[in-house]
């Protein structure tokens, strides 16, 4: 396990100090860490555990239970493609295959150049505008493979 960078350690301590007085704070703490650092470093787990007076197993168990929390940094851009039924009914599977092929990675992976992470998502609540994807927090509806290419090129230009 990589040790926690000292500035990350400071961030984690500050987050825990801010939130530890709230009822049931662990998930709030993890959200704040991921919002700040982009992921929850495995080396942050013992620190969070000791600061919240929980066992490492409890913290590890929560981090790994929830799909949203990641233990490795994401790429510069994150593309989430909906895999659920409504999107499947209008070409969602073909769109998912196109995303994999275009980025050259499978779901849950990041491109070797660190530009894109590809994630599955099970419903974005945009089912009246299927198929849907979310790119860097922006929701897009009725996405065709051509439209997806255009969106990816657009964010890639921004670097």
């Amino acid at each position, binding site marked *: 396990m990589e040790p926690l960078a000292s500035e990350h350690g400071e961030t984690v301590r500050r987050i825990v100090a801010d939130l530890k007085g709230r009822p049931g704070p662990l998930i709030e703490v993890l*959200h704040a860490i991921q919002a700040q650092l982009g992921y929850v470093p495995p080396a942050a787990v013992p620190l969070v555990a000791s600061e919240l007076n929980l066992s490492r197993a409890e913290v590890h168990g*929560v981090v790994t239970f929830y799909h949203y929390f990641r233990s490795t940094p994401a790429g510069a851009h994150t593309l989430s493609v909906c895999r659920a039924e409504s999107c499947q*009914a*209008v070409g969602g599977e073909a769109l998912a295959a196109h995303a994999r092929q275009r980025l050259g990675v499978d779901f849950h992976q990041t491109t070797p150049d660190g530009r894109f992470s590809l994630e599955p998502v099970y419903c*974005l*609540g945009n*089912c*009246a*505008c299927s198929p849907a994807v979310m790119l860097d927090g922006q929701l897009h509806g009725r996405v065709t493979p051509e439209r997806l290419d255009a969106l990816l090129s657009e964010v890639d230009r921004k670097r």
Partner: protein
Amino acid sequence: MTLTVYVPRDAGALSLGAGEVAHAIAREATARGLELQLIRNGSRGAYWLEPLVEVATSHGRMAYGPVTAGAVPGLFDADFQSGGAHPLSLGPADAIPWLASQQRLTFARVGVVDPGSVADYVIHGGYQGLRRVLAMSPEAVVEAVIGSGLRGRGGAAFPTGIKWKTVLEQPAGQKYVTCNADEGDSGTFSDRMLMEGDPLSLIEGMTIAGLAVGATQGYIYLRAEYPHAHHALSQAIAAAYQARYLGADVMGSGKRFDLEVRLGAGAYICGEETSMLESLEGKRGEVRVRPPLPAIKGLFGRPTIVNNVITLATVPTILHRGAEYYAGYGMGKSRGTLPIQLAGNIKRAGLIERAFGLTLRELLYDYGGGSASGRPLRAVQVGGPLGAYIPASQFDTLIDYEALGGIGGLLGHGGIVAFDDTVDMARMARYAMEFCAIESCGKCTPCRIGSTRGMEVIDRIIEGRDTEDNLRKLEELCDLMVQGSLCGLGGMAPFPVQSALKHFRGDFTARVQQ
């Protein structure tokens, strides 16, 4: 004169370019020297018309859609400021037949009001329910909710007032009101639309619930996939505190109610109420064994109301208009209205609120206009990923809790996903098992292991290997999961599989051996 234009900031409308349209309108108004008031409302739910732009005129709100940023200068040229004719003109928004024929009680303000404005909410009838509640006894409030016949809209359809009564009857002490906004079912988006378009109705509903049962703290458990709803809720909660509709002295009554949003972290199982409570406590979202019921021992071990967004947002209307008014809609034991979400392969997808008792056929063809692809509709899945597939031969079934239960289906949260005749039902059955395997909390074996075994058996069936033997195994496995699982995830994930086997057996048996 100030020009007032409405452009939705609903996530679905934004996903189709509403943000760019709003910018274009602001730019064009500036260029033409017009004073503009741009209101970012919710969506009216007619998504095939989004981005739907409305202009306030002396003849009411005139609608245009679907508008693109490129079409905006042309709208100004056509004098849309005064409701001028244009190819995108839809006439008065309220008179669009798809909307005008609906019975909007819960969604009356969604797409109409400015979601962040308490003043606008009050102008449109908001906080009338709470005003009445403050003059009523807690027992009378609970009786009104029981009398309305309102049942939990999250999917379980348990009578809301009975749940409240149980919490009210617990000894005084810390109690909680929690809102389950972990809307994870594919094909559903009514919670999202309501939270983005009229969040104050949810806030008012939770405040009423708190006063009715003696709870001073509310939590909204919101899924992390809904950033736009998070923003709208946070804004509306701050506005409600500012106007003293939340806090230590609700509407000058001396009664306290505090409310905050807690974010989920991408776990479908947290829509199950006991799992949601675990997650609110900051733990893994594993389901609890019931009893005790959450109404007796819920959040942090205290008596807790757990209701869905739509359930709570309907409460203000019931208290404002009266239990009889609400119960006057609907049929049989399904009273009131249901915000139905129509999605998938359908021409006119969106939100349709109607009294219970519409047929699937009316919904799919009169509102939906048939498939988007132009091919025949073959099946619909009603009630999310755990809901049964219903074949075209049963499209005359009524949308009602008991009627759908009668054909082996369930209404759930009211989401309906349409599929045309290209759908491979064996693959959809496999997906149901795959989804359960991904989302199982792991606590009980039938769900954790059964779903993975189910996926493997269906894979063999799809490959055409030992079809009859594997079909028998699959049916046995489905029975075991239904009977043996701890909660609805493992207990209902077999429903889509069993219904696919029952109505579309040919999709399983006619595979070519690979």
